[in-house]
Structure formats: structure tokens, C-alpha cells
């Protein structure tokens, strides 16, 4: 029994952390709200160079041949900086599904979703998971734009005119649960960032002659956020482990992870906003970029209520 990551896994996480600190400061997230693609440009190419985008692709196809437990912390890091990219869609879902050298190296980008697909306009390949599941080329697809509350997430409904490759049930399942794991990890990262910036803010901001962080009403809110994150993270890590070792309960474990991480991040967003007052409510201030990403990811790929019902089925109906 050992519930901890290996030195290598932590070193990989640190390398990605450093890369993102450099390539994805808040200005990049803000820029993605209004630029043409909604994406970061250099962060993506640097991640590709490091091999991260093909981490789950087998080595024979040019990837790193890693598994979920090796990359879950990388997804958490991309959440922490609110990386505006189809990171989970490509790295955890699309690239291992296609397992091509082009996808592994990041020469082509794969996105995924259901029913709306983020960044479908700038991706090369689109994976639809859901009622009808298929892989299609962007060039064979007709896209209709939808606006996410998170303006960096460019959403599209996809009609395909070519003859898309249908996915079998096993492919859909692997892709779906890996993606859900990835968003759970991003939600933990987002929550930690919201907590950290709020702590900084309440220490600096003074009212009544003292830092507002000395008020107990503020302290207890942030303590609750810290508790929620403390207990959501191990569920996410366990889910990654269970997918890696093909535990029979792996899907239930991912469902637990998504429910807990969505709730924890949503609480972090709510309390972060409250503790920032009108400053946080201002469009020009960065806080809402993170808050809206939380709202988007908490809702995507099954919200907390939906995943909790899956857990209920597993323990009550079988």
C-alpha cells in the first residue's frame, strides 16, 4: 500500500508546472477570451515539444506510452493556470484514441465533446462521444458556433458530411472516462488557484483598519474550501490509479472524482467571489476567468448530480 506519486511522476508535474508558469500567465488566458482561436499558441507548442500531448499514446506510435496515473497531475496543473486549450480532449481522449504519430507529436490537434465540442474550428480531428459516437475530420464537418460563459472555450455543434469512423462501445467508454478524469483533475487545480489568489487578496485588502482575512467569516469560508479540496484530490488520484490498473470499479471511482471535484471547485469559485467583493465582480479583474472555467467544466461531461446518481446506482441497485 502506498498512496503517493513516484519521484518521476512528481518531476514530470514540476516540469509542466514550470512550463505553464512561463507560457500561460493570466494574460494568456485573458487574451484567449478575445483572440481568433480562443487558444494560447505557444503553451500548446511547448507542451508538444515536451512530449506531453502524446503522453498516453503508445511508444510505437511516437508517444510516451504512459498511463492515467502518470498524467493526472499534469491535468491538474493545466487547470491551475486555466490553460485555454483542448488539453484533456487531446491528451487524454483524442490522441490515445487515434494513436497516430501526428496526434502524439501534436502536429495535428484532436478535440472531443458531446454534444458541443470545444475548439472544433481549430482542431484537425473531432471526436464526438455520446448518442452517436464517431471520429471525423474537421474538413468534412459543418460547425455551428455556440458561446460558452467561458469565452475562451469556443464551442461548436458538429454535423459531418463525410463518412466518419464509428466508435465501438469500448472505445467510447475508455475515451469518456479518461476525459472525465482529466476534467476532474483540472477542477482540483482550478480550485487551488482560486483559493491561493483569494488568500493573497484577503491578506492585502484592508477594511476597518485590518486585513479582511482576519475576519472569521472570511476565514471559515476559506477553511471550508481548503477542506473540500483536501478530500476531493485523493478521489481524483485514486480514479487515475483505478483506470491505470483496470479496476472493475474504475468508472464509479471516476464518477466520485468528478462529483467531488466539481463541488469543491464550485465552492471555491463561490467563496472566492464573495471574499473579493466587487473587485472580483469586475470584468476587468482576472478572477472571473477562473470562476467561469469552473462553471464550464463542472457542467461538462456530466455534472456532480449526474455522477452522484451513477454512484447511487453502483451501490444501491446492483
Amino acid at each position, binding site marked *: 500500500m502506498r*498512496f503517493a506519486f513516484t519521484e518521476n511522476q512528481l518531476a514530470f508535474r514540476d516540469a509542466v508546472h514550470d512550463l505553464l508558469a512561463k507560457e500561460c500567465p493570466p494574460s494568456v488566458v485573458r487574451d484567449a477570451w478575445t483572440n481568433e482561436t480562443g487558444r494560447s499558441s505557444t503553451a500548446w507548442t511547448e507542451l508538444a515539444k515536451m512530449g506531453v500531448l502524446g503522453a498516453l499514446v503508445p511508444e510505437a506510435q511516437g508517444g510516451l506510452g504512459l498511463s492515467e496515473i502518470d498524467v493526472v497531475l499534469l491535468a491538474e496543473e493545466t487547470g491551475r493556470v486555466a490553460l485555454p486549450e483542448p488539453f484533456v480532449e487531446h491528451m487524454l481522449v483524442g490522441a490515445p484514441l487515434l494513436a497516430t504519430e501526428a496526434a502524439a507529436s501534436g502536429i495535428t490537434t484532436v478535440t472531443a465533446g458531446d454534444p458541443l465540442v470545444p475548439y472544433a474550428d481549430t482542431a484537425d480531428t473531432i471526436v464526438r462521444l455520446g448518442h452517436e459516437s464517431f471520429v471525423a475530420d474537421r474538413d468534412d464537418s459543418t460547425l455551428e458556433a455556440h458561446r460558452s460563459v467561458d469565452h475562451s472555450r469556443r464551442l461548436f455543434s458538429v454535423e459531418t458530411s463525410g463518412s466518419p469512423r464509428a466508435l465501438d462501445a469500448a472505445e467510447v467508454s475508455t475515451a469518456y472516462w479518461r476525459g472525465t478524469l482529466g476534467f476532474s483533475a483540472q477542477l482540483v487545480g482550478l480550485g487551488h488557484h482560486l483559493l491561493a489568489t483569494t488568500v493573497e487578496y484577503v491578506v492585502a485588502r484592508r477594511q476597518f483598519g485590518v*486585513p479582511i482575512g482576519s475576519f472569521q467569516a472570511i476565514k471559515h469560508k476559506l477553511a471550508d474550501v481548503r477542506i473540500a479540496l483536501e478530500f476531493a484530490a485523493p478521489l481524483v488520484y485514486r480514479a487515475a490509479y483505478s483506470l491505470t490498473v483496470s479496476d472493475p470499479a474504475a468508472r464509479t471511482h471516476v464518477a466520485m472524482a468528478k462529483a467531488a471535484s466539481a463541488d469543491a471547485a464550485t465552492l471555491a469559485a463561490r467563496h472566492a467571489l464573495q471574499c473579493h467583493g466587487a473587485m472580483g465582480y469586475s470584468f476587468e479583474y482576472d478572477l472571473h476567468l477562473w470562476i467561469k472555467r469552473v462553471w464550464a467544466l463542472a457542467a461538462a461531461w456530466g455534472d456532480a448530480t449526474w455522477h452522484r446518481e451513477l454512484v447511487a446506482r453502483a451501490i444501491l441497485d446492483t
Partner: protein
Amino acid sequence: MDLTWSADEQAFRAEARAWLETNVPPAGLASGDTREGFARHLEWERALFDARWAVVSWPQAYGGRDASLWEWLIFEEEYSRAGAPQRVTQNGIFLLAPTLFEFGTPGQRDRFLPTMASGEETWCQGWSEPDAGSDLAAISSRAVRDELAGGWRLSGQKTWTTRGAFCTHLFGLYRTDSDAERHRGLTYFLVPLDTPGVTVRGFGRLDGDEGFADVFCDDVFVPDDLVLGEVDQGWKVAMATTGSERGLTLRSPGRFLATTSRLVELARERGAADPLVRQRIAQGQIDAEAYQLQTLATVTKLSAGEHPGAESSLTKVFWSELDVQLHETALGLAGHDAELEDSPWMKGWQFALSGPIYAGTNEIQRNVIAERVLGLPRK
């Protein structure tokens, strides 16, 4: 990451399970917070001790099995799973003992640990006083030096002392230097309750059982060798005990996993169709597993020689709120039966409600988290 148990650990689990299956009293025991029930519980403790299951993590010399923290967790899981009786010796074996191992003299360990393990001597915790609850450093009970006799004379009132009316000994804090700053000048004493000058008065808790007591000392003589740690250093020693109380040793995850399975069983019997109820049960399962996993991470760190700090406050809020939530959900399933006083869920519910109060209230824990984990300013 490796979430599997070794062959030895599995064998340990099997041995514990087999023993518990044959020995746990199937009908349960009367509440250990009554005089009669306490006596029954001590018989059970004796059976545990004789089979060397009373204090698995202790050295063999004191009646333990030298079990690793992992094995200890396994034992706790099996113990709760088997529905075995509450541990009326818990304040001794889970709270005082770790402190004795850390601060006690060899003489104190040899004198007190074996009888504590067997249940021959039972310990209660004397922190709180009428005017010192959350603000523990405000205690006013005093110990005055008796140089001639080589010891101290204790006076003052302790209250809400769990099972104080049934225990043989008390560990507690007394003020030895009244001029010192509040947290200094306190000393940790081990007090036999049959010493002349001690008066104990039991009183009822929320559920009516006599689980609380006032412990009055009036010029009670305690010799020097019953001081735990150094004179005037009691605060530091006591903090080690409260760390155990909030964290791992008092409320291990097996307890809440077992409560959750009983809740799931109840829901299956009653037919769990209501979506809101299903949500709450699923949440209970998620939280119980989250607590288990977080504990595995903590034990991994402890096994690597790291020391947990204020993080135990996160744990304490989490398990106590979880326990309340599980019982609330169960009572919701019981319909009009929820009113019946003797239903196990009503008893458990009343006890669950004390979780956010004892071991440092959850408000105090949130202060600690904010100030010592997050670094927010005290004032």
C-alpha cells in the same frame, strides 16, 4: 501508487476478521456510557486484551502486536465492519498512550501501559473546566508545590469529563505557575481518582446516559513521578494528545465506511427510489471513501517519517460533519420510526452531533486551518 495489500497484511486482516466473527457479542452491549454497560465493556476489553487485539500497534511487551500503521488501519476497518463494541478505553489507549510513548519516563510506561491495555485501569481526560472550554488555556485548576512531600497539591473543577464517573484515573492540566503567560505554567498530571480529596459526580449527556462527569479536586496530593513531561510544559504535552484526538487515532476511516454500509443496507431494505435520498447516500459513500483515501495518503507520509501538523484540523471537521450527514440521511429513511429513542440511528445521531463539539469545536478547527494552514492573519 499501489493500492493493494501485501500477503502479510491480508493474512493479518483474515486473522482479525476470523477472531472478531467468533467473538463479537452478536446482540451488542448496553451503552458504555452507563455504569452497567461500562462494566460489560470492560469484560469485552479483557477478551480483546487476552487475544492481543486490544492495542495492536503497541510493542508486544505492553500487550500489543507491534503492528504497523497499515495493520492498525486494517484492524480498525475490521473492528467497525464487525459491529464490535465501542472502546470505552479509548481515552487511555488512543489519546494518553501516544503521549506516554512520546513524553513518559520508562517507569511511567511500565507502570501504566499494561493496565491501560487490559482495561484494569481506565482513563478519563481532564481538560475542560466550567470557564475553559474552547479557550483551554484559561483553566484555573491549580497545583501547589509540596516540597516536603515531594509532589503537588491539586485543586479545582474539571467538567464534561467523558466516563469520568466510571474511570479509575484522570490525565489533566493544572496550573503550576500562576504568574506565567496563559499557555506557560501548565503541567500535565496523571491522577488516580481514588486519591483522598477527589470527588466525582456523573451527569447525563444529550441522550441521558451518565457519560459526563465533574471531577473536583480539593487539596489532592500527587507525587512527582505522576507528572507527565516537564513541570510548566503541560501545554506542549497536551497538544500532542489533542493532535491524536483530531487526527488518525481516535476516528479512523473504518468507522465511517461501516456506518455508510449500514446506511446503504437500510436504503436497500426500504427501497431507495427518491432521487434526493439517492444523492445523499451517494454523497455519504463518496465522502467516506474520500476520508479513507486521504488517510492512506497521510499514513504513507507518516511511514516515510513526515509529521502531520495543523492538517489534522482538516480531518477533524471532515469526519465529524460526515458522521452527522450519514445519520441525518439514515433518520430520513426511517420515516416515523425516526422518533423512536431506542433505534440505533437515533442513538448514533445524538452521538454524531457531539463530533463537531468535542476534540476542539469545528469553529476552532476552521480558525486553525485559516491561520496555520492558509496563513491568514490572527488579528
